C-alpha cells in the first residue's frame, strides 16, 4: 500500500507538471507567434505604397534603410525574385507557387508560416502586392514550438525530479500517518479507532468478532458433543469420503479391527477388503443403503452402510454377538419346549386311544389311566415351569424386594416337602433357627427352595439325607445357604450345564423321576434376580452341594437385578 501511494503520488506530480509545462509552452508560443506575425506585417505594409523599382533604387542607394533584422524579398509578378537582402536574388527559385505570394497576388496580402529543413526553426512570411503588381515579402525566422519544448524540457525535468523527491517524502509521511495508527490498532481488546473515519470499521470489526466468537463456541460445543458420542459409543462408526478414504473413525473401530495404528487417511479397503463388503461400500458411495454381517476376532457385527448427503458414506458396526447367541438359544429353547410338551401328550393320546378303542385288557385299564394321570401331571408341571420362567424373563417376578427371612422360607418349604421326603426314605433337615434377612421376594424364594429341595430328595437314595445350612458373614452380612444331599451326584463335566434349560444329566432317568429339566434353570434365574450367586459341587455316588450366596438385607438392593440370556445359559 505504501509503495502504491508513493507511486501514485509520483505519477500525479509528473503528470501535472508536464501538463502545466505543455500548456505554458503553447500559450507562450502562441503569443510570441502573434507578435512576430504583427511585426513582419507592419514592416511589409510600411513599403506598400512604393513601386518595386523605387524600392530597389532606394535600397541600392541607401543600404542603411534595408531592414537588417528580417529578410525582405522583392518578387516580380511572374514569381522571379528581383531582390533579396540576405541572399543573391538570382539564385532563388521561382516563388510564384508559395502560399503567401499566391494569396498576395489575389487579394493584396498573404501570410504563411513554414518549418525550415529541421523542425527546430520556423519562418513566418507576410507578403503585400505593390502598386506595380510586384510582391514584397517580409520573413522572419524564429524557434519553432518544438525547439521551445526542447528548451523547456531540462528545467521542467528538474522541477519534476525535485517535486518527485518532495512528493516521495510527503507520500511517505502521509502513508505513515494513515497506516501506522492502523498497524498499532489492537484488535484483541476494545477497539479504539485512531481517527474518526475508522469508527465504522472498528464497530464492524467488534460486531463481527462477537459473532465469530459465538459461532466458534457453538461449533466447539457441537464438536465436543459429537466427539463424546463417537468416543463413548460401543458401536463402531466410520466415515468414508467419496474416494473411499476413511475420514473419521471412533475408538470402537480400533477395538473391532484390533488396530495398532490410526486408519484415518487410509482407504476403506484396508479395513474391509472382502469382495462383497467392498462392493457394498461402493454401492453406499453411489447412494444406496445396505446391511451386512461381518465376523472379526470371534465376534459378529452387523454393518449398516448408509450414503451421506453431499458424497461419502457412513458405516456403523453393531456388535450382534450376544443378540445372535441369544437368538440361537431362544430358537433352541422353543424347539426344546415343543419337544418336551409333545412327549407327554403323545403318551396321553396313545393310552387314551387304546382305552377309547376298547383295546386294553380290563386288567391294564387302571395302569393306563394311571399313566395318563402321571403324564398329565408332568405336562402341567412343565407348563407351570415354562410359565414361571417366561414370567421371570418378562418382569423378573414383578415388584420390588422386601426384607425377607430366607431361613424361615426354607423351613416352611421343607415342611411342605416333608411328606415327600418320608416317602422317598430321605431325612430332611433345615438347620438354624436364626433369621437370615435378605432383600427378596418371598414367593420366588419359596419356589427356589422348593426346586432345590425337591431335586435333593428326588435324586437321593433311600436312607439318604438332605440338609440345609445357613451362615451369615458378620462383616458384610452376606448370607450363604448350602443345600447338601447324599444322592447320586453329578459328573464334573455337567456342573455348569445342569443350570441350562432342559439339560439333563441322564435322559433315561428323567422319565422315571418325572422332572421337567427346568428346575435348576429356574433356581439360577431366581438367584441372579436376587443379586446372588449359585454354584454346585458334587461327587458321583456321594452327593451334591448347591451353594447360594445372597447379599444381606439392605435398602440399596430393592430392585431385581437384570438377567441376560447368556448368564442363565438359555
Amino acid at each position, binding site marked *: 500500500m505504501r509503495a502504491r501511494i508513493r507511486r501514485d503520488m509520483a505519477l500525479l506530480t509528473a503528470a501535472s507538471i508536464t501538463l502545466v509545462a505543455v500548456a505554458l509552452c503553447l500559450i507562450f508560443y502562441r503569443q510570441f507567434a502573434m507578435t512576430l506575425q504583427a511585426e513582419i506585417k507592419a514592416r511589409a505594409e510600411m513599403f506598400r505604397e512604393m513601386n518595386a523599382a523605387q524600392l530597389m533604387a532606394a535600397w541600392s542607394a541607401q543600404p542603411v534603410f534595408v531592414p537588417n533584422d528580417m529578410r525582405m524579398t522583392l518578387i516580380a509578378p511572374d514569381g522571379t525574385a528581383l531582390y533579396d537582402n540576405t541572399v543573391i536574388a538570382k539564385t532563388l527559385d521561382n516563388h510564384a507557387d508559395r502560399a503567401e505570394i499566391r494569396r498576395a497576388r489575389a487579394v493584396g496580402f498573404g501570410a504563411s508560416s513554414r518549418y525550415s529543413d529541421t523542425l527546430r526553426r520556423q519562418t513566418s512570411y507576410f507578403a503585400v502586392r505593390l502598386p506595380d503588381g510586384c510582391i514584397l515579402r517580409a520573413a522572419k525566422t524564429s524557434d519553432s514550438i518544438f525547439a521551445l519544448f526542447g528548451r523547456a524540457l531540462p528545467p521542467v525535468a528538474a522541477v519534476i525530479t525535485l517535486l518527485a523527491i518532495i512528493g516521495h517524502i510527503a507520500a511517505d509521511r502521509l502513508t505513515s500517518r494513515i497506516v501506522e495508527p492502523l498497524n498499532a490498532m489492537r484488535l484483541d481488546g476494545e477497539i479504539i479507532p485512531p481517527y474518526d473515519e475508522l469508527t465504522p470499521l472498528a464497530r464492524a470489526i467488534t460486531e463481527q468478532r462477537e459473532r465469530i466468537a459465538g459461532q466458534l463456541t457453538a461449533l466447539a460445543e457441537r464438536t465436543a458433543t459429537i466427539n463424546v458420542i463417537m468416543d463413548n459409543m460401543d458401536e463402531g462408526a466410520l466415515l468414508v469420503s467419496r474416494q*473411499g478414504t476413511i475420514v473419521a473413525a471412533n475408538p470402537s473401530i480400533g477395538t473391532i479391527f484390533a488396530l*495398532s*495404528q490410526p486408519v484415518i487417511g487410509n*482407504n476403506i*479397503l*484396508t479395513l474391509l*477388503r*472382502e*469382495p462383497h463388503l*467392498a462392493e457394498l461400500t461402493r454401492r453406499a458411495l453411489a447412494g444406496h443403503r445396505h446391511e451386512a454381517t461381518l465376523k472379526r476376532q470371534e465376534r459378529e457385527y452387523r454393518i449398516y452402510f448408509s450414503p451421506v448427503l453431499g458424497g461419502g458414506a457412513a458405516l456403523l458396526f453393531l456388535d450382534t454377538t450376544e443378540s445372535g447367541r441369544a437368538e440361537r438359544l431362544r430358537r433352541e429353547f422353543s424347539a426344546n419346549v415343543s419337544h418336551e410338551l409333545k412327549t407327554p401328550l403323545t403318551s396321553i393320546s396313545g393310552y387314551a386311544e387304546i382305552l377309547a378303542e376298547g383295546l386294553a385288557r380290563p386288567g391294564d385299564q387302571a395302569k393306563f389311566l394311571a399313566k395318563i394321570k402321571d403324564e398329565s401331571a408332568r405336562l402341567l408341571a412343565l407348563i407351570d415351569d415354562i410359565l414361571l420362567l417366561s414370567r421371570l424373563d418378562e418382569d423378573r417376578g414383578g415388584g420390588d424386594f422386601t426384607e425377607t427371612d430366607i431361613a424361615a422360607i426354607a423351613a416352611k418349604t421343607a415342611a411342605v416337602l416333608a411328606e415327600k421326603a418320608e416317602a422317598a426314605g430321605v431325612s430332611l433337615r433345615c438347620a438354624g433357627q436364626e433369621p437370615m434377612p435378605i432383600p427378596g421376594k418371598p414367593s420366588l424364594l419359596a419356589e427356589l427352595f422348593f426346586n432345590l429341595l425337591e431335586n435333593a430328595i428326588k435324586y437321593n437314595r433311600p436312607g439318604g439325607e438332605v440338609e440345609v445350612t445357613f451362615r451369615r458373614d458378620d462383616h458384610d452380612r452376606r448370607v450363604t445357604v448350602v443345600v447338601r444331599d447324599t444322592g447320586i451326584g453329578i459328573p464334573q463335566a455337567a456342573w455348569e450345564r445342569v443350570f441350562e434349560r432342559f439339560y439333563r444329566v441322564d435322559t433315561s432317568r428323567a422319565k422315571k423321576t418325572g422332572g421337567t429339566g427346568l428346575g435348576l434353570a429356574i433356581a439360577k434365574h431366581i438367584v441372579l434376580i436376587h443379586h446372588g450367586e449359585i454354584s454346585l459341587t458334587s461327587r458321583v455316588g456321594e452327593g451334591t452341594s448347591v451353594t447360594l450366596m445372597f447379599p444381606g438385607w439392605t435398602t440399596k438392593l430393592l430392585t431385581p437385578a437384570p438377567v441376560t440370556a447368556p448368564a442363565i445359559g438359555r
Partner: protein
Amino acid sequence: MRGRFNEQLTELNNNLIEMGALIEKAIAQATEALERRDAEVARSVMENDDLIDSKEKEIEARCLNLLLRQQPVAHDLSQVSAILKMITDMERIGDHAADISALCLGLSGQEYIMKSESIPKMATATIRMVTGSIDAFVNRDVAGAKAIKECDALVNALFLVAKKELIALVREEAANGEWAFDLWQIAKYYERIGDHAVNIAEWVIFAITGQHKNRQIF
C-alpha cells in the same frame, strides 16, 4: 505430476488389496468345498478364477504404465516392482484354489476328508498365511510379513505328515489309492499356496524396507 503419481500409486495399492481379497475368498471357498464336499462352491471357485486372472492383467497394465510414463525411482520404484511381483504369486494362488476345487469335484461323494487329519490343518494354516501376507501389505507390517515365513515351516511339516497318513491308508486298503492320490495332490497345492504366500510376504518386506531376502536392493 507428483500428485498424479501418488494418486495412481494409491489406486494400485487398492487394486492389489482387492485382488488379495479375491484370492482369500477363493482359497477359503476351495477349502469349504473340500471339507463340506460342496460341488456348487467348488464350481464357483473355478468360475471366479477368471476374475482373478483379469485383475492380474489389469494391475500388470497399470504397473507397466506407471513404470513407463512416470519412470519412478528409489522407493516408488520398489513399490511398483514389488506389486508387479506379488500379483504373479497371487495369480498362482488363485490357480491352485481352482485346481483344488477341480479335484474336489472328482472327490465329491467320497468319505475322504475324515481320513486325513493334516490336510484340514494345512488348509487352515495356508489360509492364515495368505490372509497374513495381505494384512502385512495393507498395514505395512514387516513383523507380520516375517511371521508368515515361520508359518510355512508348519505347512511343510504337515505336508510330510499328510503324505505318511495317505501312504498308510493305501497300505490298509488298496482301493483307497484312487482318492488318496487326489488328496495327495490337494495337499501339494496347499503346500504350494503356502510357498506363494511366503513369496508375497517377501515382496511386502521389499516394498517397505527395500530388502529382498535379506539383501539390500534399494
